[in-house]
């Protein structure tokens, strides 16, 4: 094949290189994709990949050509490590290092499958050979993550072979900057980082802003607890972000890009660094890209290590090397941003949508989704759901579809209670709204928000007061402390919640919480403080009774708040084994051997030891 010497100097160079790569791929007998995404790595995926790599190396007798690929997240984290094989699209789950030899024998050399590693239907027990038979994968539509989990995450060749940088060539070669801008505008793409601001409009403001140089920045700070959408994307398809940014730079007239990556994401930092270096080496970044005359380069910056650093002004302060604290400004960062110059900041997922929009057109993109929310959204589905994982679905899919069809429903088939969306400043949506379509505006109307795409599913054992408290505590710790309402107001709200879950709530607490919520929204300096009360507001809105039970009757209906429920021994289930009696630290349990035991409510301190030690589930929370 034509090996690349030096840089691509023209669009033709790129296309020739691409077709050479495709020819080479045609000679491959088997491709093994080992998911090394955020969910699979901790479960031993790296060893699995290494074993496949070695096997391929050792088997290099030219009778079979096998290419093992280390990929980004393939989605179904719950069942990781995931391995998929082509041809045939065989889908294996829970693969361990020790399974590699068998897979090699059966599916690489032979044409069989290893049944025990296939996905089996929960009810029928039927095995699925490919993802088509796995409910989790039904209804997905991958645009931002199109190549994540498919290509080798470290390989620019893989990205190019799969059509990468084609959109860039199209933009630079056949479109004027205004046309690119127009395309993004018409696509209806809205920012995936939280606010849902119309991307095309932001780009236009950046293009029209006065001041040189202009900056293009990708926000990869992802600080929401439990979220890993952006991480998966940066690790699994770094070039999609890079390509989007180059196109953005061309559209607004900027040659300087920065990617701000959360400090706790070392793999993402490494992948992006390598990807940028490779793209530069091949002439896709740097001077005179593809001979177009347009120049653009990207630097990678490691985040300041705080949640608030993801906020636009704090991010730019941090990029400048100052403390990552929001600045009070009424002039937008597209006019006065990084180094006081016009700066276009978009979330990494927003950027990753851009190549597809330019490549396939605004109309195609606008045809997906709902009236005002176009395209798809990546969610990280976690909590009490059977299939946790990374999901990319068209806007407008219902919560029920996401949670029950893709997520497989609630663990242990318990009743669903609520889903928390939008990250720490999002809200909790109850069962009554499961059939609502998920889009920016609808989630906001429901008192929650899209945020960056976190989705935490909760069952009946979750106390909603406690959940609100959990998020508020997170925000209290992450507030930068600069402005009075956020620093003092969140602490006040948290104090009230602490009292409520401690059984010391008083009438008027809900009103005080609501008053503080309004105060925060009206007076806080940045969006962290302005929206900090959301978790409280949305739970008060939908679960007021639960708050009242805590406050008025000192009872926690979900039986989660210690002290607000009691332990009782179910005489029918108790075998009289005596373990609880022996373990109880305050000797509150009495009973004869082989006879039902009894808890003395006056002595009991609600420590829960008996509940934990009983092997017959005879200790109940009441």
């Amino acid at each position, binding site marked *: 094949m034509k090996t690349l010497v030096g840089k691509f100097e023209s669009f033709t160079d790129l296309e020739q290189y691409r077709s050479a790569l495709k020819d080479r791929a045609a000679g491959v007998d088997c491709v093994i994709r080992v998911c090394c995404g955020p969910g699979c790595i901790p479960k031993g995926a790296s060893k699995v990949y290494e074993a496949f790599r070695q096997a391929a190396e050792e088997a290099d007798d030219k009778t079979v050509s096998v290419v093992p690929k280390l990929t980004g997240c393939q989605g179904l984290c719950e069942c990781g490590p995931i391995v998929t094989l082509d041809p045939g699209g065989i889908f294996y789950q829970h693969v361990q290092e020790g399974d590699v030899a068998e897979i090699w024998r059966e599916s690489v050399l032979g044409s069989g499958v290893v049944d025990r590693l296939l996905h089996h239907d929960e009810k029928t027990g039927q095995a699925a050979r490919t993802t088509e038979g796995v409910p989790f994968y039904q209804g997905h539509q991958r645009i931002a993550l199109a190549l994540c989990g498919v290509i080798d995450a470290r390989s620019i060749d893989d990205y190019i072979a799969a059509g990468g940088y084609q959109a860039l060539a199209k933009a630079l070669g056949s479109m004027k900057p205004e046309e690119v801008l127009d395309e993004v505008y018409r696509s209806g793409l809205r920012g995936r980082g939280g606010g849902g601001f119309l991307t095309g409009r932001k780009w236009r403001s950046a293009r029209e802003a006065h001041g040189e140089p202009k900056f293009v920045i990708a926000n990869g700070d992802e600080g929401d607890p439990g979220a890993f959408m952006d991480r998966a994307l940066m690790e699994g398809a770094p070039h999609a972000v890079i390509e989007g940014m180059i196109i953005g730079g061309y559209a607004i007239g900027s040659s300087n890009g920065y990617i701000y990556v959360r400090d706790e994401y070392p793999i993402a930092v490494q992948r992006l660094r390598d990807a940028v270096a490779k793209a530069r080496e091949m002439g896709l970044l740097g001077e005179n890209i593809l001979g177009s005359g347009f120049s653009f380069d990207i630097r990678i910056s490691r985040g300041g290590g*705080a949640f608030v650093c993801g906020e636009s002004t704090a991010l730019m302060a941090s990029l400048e090397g100052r403390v990552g604290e929001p600045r*009070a*400004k*009424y*002039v937008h960062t597209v006019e006065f941003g990084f180094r006081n110059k016009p700066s276009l900041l978009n979330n990494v997922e927003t950027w990753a949508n851009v190549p597809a929009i330019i490549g396939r057109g605004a109309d195609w993109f606008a045809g997906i989704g709902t009236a005002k929310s176009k395209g798809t959204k990546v969610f990280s589905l976690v909590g009490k759901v059977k299939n946790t994982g990374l999901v990319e679905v068209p806007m407008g899919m219902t919560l029920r579809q996401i949670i029950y069809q893709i997520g497989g429903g609630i663990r242990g088939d318990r009743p669903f209670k609520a889903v928390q969306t939008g990250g720490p400043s999002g809200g909790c949506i109850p069962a009554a709204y499961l059939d609502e379509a998920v889009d920016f505006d609808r989630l906001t109307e429901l008192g929650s928000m899209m945020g960056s795409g976190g989705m935490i599913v909760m069952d009946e054992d979750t106390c909603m007061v406690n959940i609100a408290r959990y998020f508020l505590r997170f925000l*209290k*710790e*992450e*507030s*930068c*402390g*600069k*402005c*009075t*309402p956020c*620093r*003092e*107001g*969140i*602490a*006040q709200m*948290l*104090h009230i919640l602490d009292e409520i879950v401690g059984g010391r709530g008083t009438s008027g607490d809900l009103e005080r919480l609501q*008053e503080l919520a309004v*105060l925060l929204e*009206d*007076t*806080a*300096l940045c969006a962290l403080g302005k929206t900090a009360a959301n978790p409280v507001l949305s739970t008060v809105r939908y679960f007021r009774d639960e708050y009242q039970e805590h406050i008025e009757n000192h009872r926690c209906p979900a039986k989660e708040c210690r002290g607000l429920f009691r332990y009782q021994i179910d005489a029918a289930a108790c075998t009289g084994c005596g373990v609880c009696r022996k373990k109880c630290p305050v000797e509150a349990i009495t009973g004869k051997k082989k006879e039902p035991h009894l808890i003395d409510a006056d002595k009991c301190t609600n420590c829960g030891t008996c509940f934990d030690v009983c092997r017959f589930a005879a200790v109940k929370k009441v």
Partner: protein
Amino acid sequence: MPTVTIDNQAFAAEVDETILQVAARNGVWIPTLCYHAALEPYASCRLCMVEIDRGGWWQMVTACNYPVRRDVTVRVESERAIRARRGVMRLLLARAPESPELRALASRLGVTQTDFPTVTEAEGNCILCGLCVRACEERIGTAAISLTGRGVERKVSAPFGEPSEECILCGSCAAVCPVGTIRLEVHGDEWELVPFGKKGPAQRCAACGAVLTAELVREALARRGPAAVQGILAGEELCARCKRKKLVGQLLAAGGSGAPSAPSER
């Protein structure tokens, strides 16, 4: 020239003036804590909240840093703005209930007490307005103190909690502190910046012995002050009274007629 209409009164303004500047110039009082005319607006205390008309909706903004770019209609005394300012004040009072300065400002705002418990700890009533840090950095060009810690842990401190090497005992931080947390105390010939623990000798008037400034300030001025200042410093250092006395004496000796017009203070 844009017009700023505040509670139905129209005032002419310059482009990029802030709402607070326009209000102050025209005698409209908007409470502030973290604002100082000599420093960049910081907008952290959130006490200067006012409403502005955004055509169909009213936005809450901080007057201290909202730049006037075109005509703008402002409500200072609206129910929402008053509630917001009082709310912020109640939170501050809960933090530093002992501060007489804060209580005085609060009562001017119509807040006589706070219903919030004290849930955050304020060292010496510090309300974290940041004026001290900014005065030191922006005006003196020294970063002897800084804001450290996040959220409720935030506090003003010298590096490593030790008396700062950089501090010249100029006392600017103490001068701008609105609640008296920072004080420059004089113990005989020694000055101390409380609570940072920085100490240094005082410089006295060569004639009468009155305390002039800290030695360190004199040194710093000699080091980085403009040439004119250095010239003055090179001479004998006198307090204002002694300087006047000396000047009058010189004039009389030169046969001048009567006292000269009062020299301005230094």
